[in-house]
């Protein structure tokens, strides 16, 4: 199949269709409106259903219902709308219903700005809703990666019976880039029998979708298995790009659009002899611990957390891996102001120069 020029929202939406997504419900918000717009004509073409809900709350609950009927379902929004969906996402996790949720993120807090930002990192990775559940969080940095991650998202969600979250900034969501879409996939629906209410007639009592859980001991048992699932993620499901870190003295850490600028800066600085590399988490949760722990800390002079978020949010995850073995510097913007390549390059250079005294 030939390469196509599409925007980030359409990359996700078309890839979802090809992954077998047949239900979408959502409520408009910039900068993700291309997703529902695209689904509104694309889903009926493949026998799917598109609903523009009366609100975010209604939409996430429609996804809950469709997914509980065994359909591959998704919703999308941006920061303020994701907050409204929090209750429904927690219910999906609580009843172990797989679905995919996309956040094309913008400046915050509050109504914030419609311009791109990465200020929903903590929300996405630590607390998408109440009750202490987590999801796998994918953070694409190119539109091809957005296509590939979306295509696989339901496979993870159904394997784990847990929602999967895609966090992509509004810059990637609205820019156009060349992608190659995968073939249409016909997912195996027999594997959905554990939660699919359409098929639940002949399954065991324990296979039913339940919420709430009585007695409490059952819920604790569930939470223990959820905990074990998260440990399996950390072991098996980490996706990361490591770029020139083997001999690096300084290591930029960035994801999504920020990582594109960071990589450009690393390439430029390498040409000038600076020993700098990049760790780019592709899964924000599970965070790529091994990439940090395999480093030789007698050589590493510092990390540069590079985010479109002030205060920096990913920093706490970097801190938890670095454990004081090297200083963590920051270069961040926020509120809808994007990086520009020259500024990232010159700020990295400044940080390195000041940290190491002689520049190299």
């Amino acid at each position: 199949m030939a390469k196509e020029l599409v925007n980030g929202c359409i990359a996700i939406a078309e890839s979802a269709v090809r992954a077998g997504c047949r239900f979408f419900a959502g409520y408009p918000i910039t900068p993700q409106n291309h997703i529902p717009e695209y689904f509104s004509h694309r889903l009926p073409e493949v026998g799917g259903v598109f609903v523009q809900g009366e609100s975010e709350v209604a939409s996430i609950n429609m996804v809950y219902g469709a997914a509980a009927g065994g359909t591959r379902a998704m919703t999308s929004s941006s920061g303020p709308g994701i907050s409204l969906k929090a209750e429904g996402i927690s219910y999906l996790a609580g009843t172990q219903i797989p679905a995919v949720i996309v956040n094309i993120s913008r400046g915050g807090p509050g109504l914030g700005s419609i311009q791109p930002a990465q200020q929903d990192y903590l929300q996405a990775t630590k607390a998408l809703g109440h009750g202490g559940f987590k999801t796998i969080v994918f953070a694409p940095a190119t539109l091809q990666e957005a296509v590939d991650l979306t295509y696989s998202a339901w496979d993870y969600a159904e394997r784990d019976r847990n929602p999967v979250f895609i966090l992509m900034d509004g810059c990637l969501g609205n820019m156009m880039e060349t992608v190659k879409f995968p073939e249409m996939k016909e997912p195996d629906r027999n594997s959905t029998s554990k939660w699919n209410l359409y098929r639940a007639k002949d399954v065991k009592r324990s296979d039913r979708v339940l919420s709430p859980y009585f007695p409490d001991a059952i819920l604790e048992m569930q939470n223990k298995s959820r905990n074990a699932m998260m440990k399996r993620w950390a072991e098996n499901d980490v996706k990361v790009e490591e770029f020139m870190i083997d001999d690096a003295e300084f290591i930029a850490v960035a994801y999504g659009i920020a990582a594109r600028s960071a990589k450009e800066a690393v390439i430029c600085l390498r040409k000038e002899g600076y020993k700098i590399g990049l760790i780019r988490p592709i899964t924000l949760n599970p965070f790529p611990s091994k990439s940090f722990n395999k480093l030789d800390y007698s050589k590493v002079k510092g990390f540069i957390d590079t985010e479109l978020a002030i205060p920096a949010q990913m920093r706490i995850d970097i801190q938890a891996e670095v454990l004081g073995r090297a200083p963590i510097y920051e270069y961040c913007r926020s509120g809808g102001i994007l990086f520009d390549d020259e500024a990232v390059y010159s700020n990295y250079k400044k940080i390195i120069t000041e940290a190491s005294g002689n520049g190299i």
Partner: protein
Amino acid sequence: MKKTLVISGSGGQGVMSAGIIIAEAAVDSGRNAVYLPEYGPQQRGGTAKCTVITDEEEIVSPLASKCDVLIALNSQSYSKFKKAVKPGGTLIVNSSMTGQTENIDGFKIINVPADDISSSLGNIKVSNIVMIGALLSSGADIIGKEEMTKTLVQKFSSKSGSADINLEALNAGINYREK
């Protein structure tokens, strides 16, 4: 080679369409392209800007600080973004809106009365395509005439008659010479 083009003007002048058409033409001819739109909440009248980057290689970052070519469709955009052009770069200006702009040392400035040209063709909406024509003959080497013509025909052939007016506008832009 990585080439960065910025197009800016007022919402409604076809800034985004021009950017997408150029990016599509680059992709049709086998190169990589990134198109990055920037605009505020206004649909019409606010400043609209887009960046198009083309390269034979992988495009690492789309957040370029400086551009090789600026296409400015109005005065505001010209004053705002002329500083973003790399030394030796090209500025193509819609002189119907800005008046004749003065030369700046070390830059190539091309004045094109795009609104006058498009009006004389009978449709002011194709001013953006006139400017693409001017880009093709500017020597900026972002996109070739043949590939742009092919993309325009493909894009507009389904809309009756609009391929013709767009091609006329493209050729008028290509053939325009400053007096």
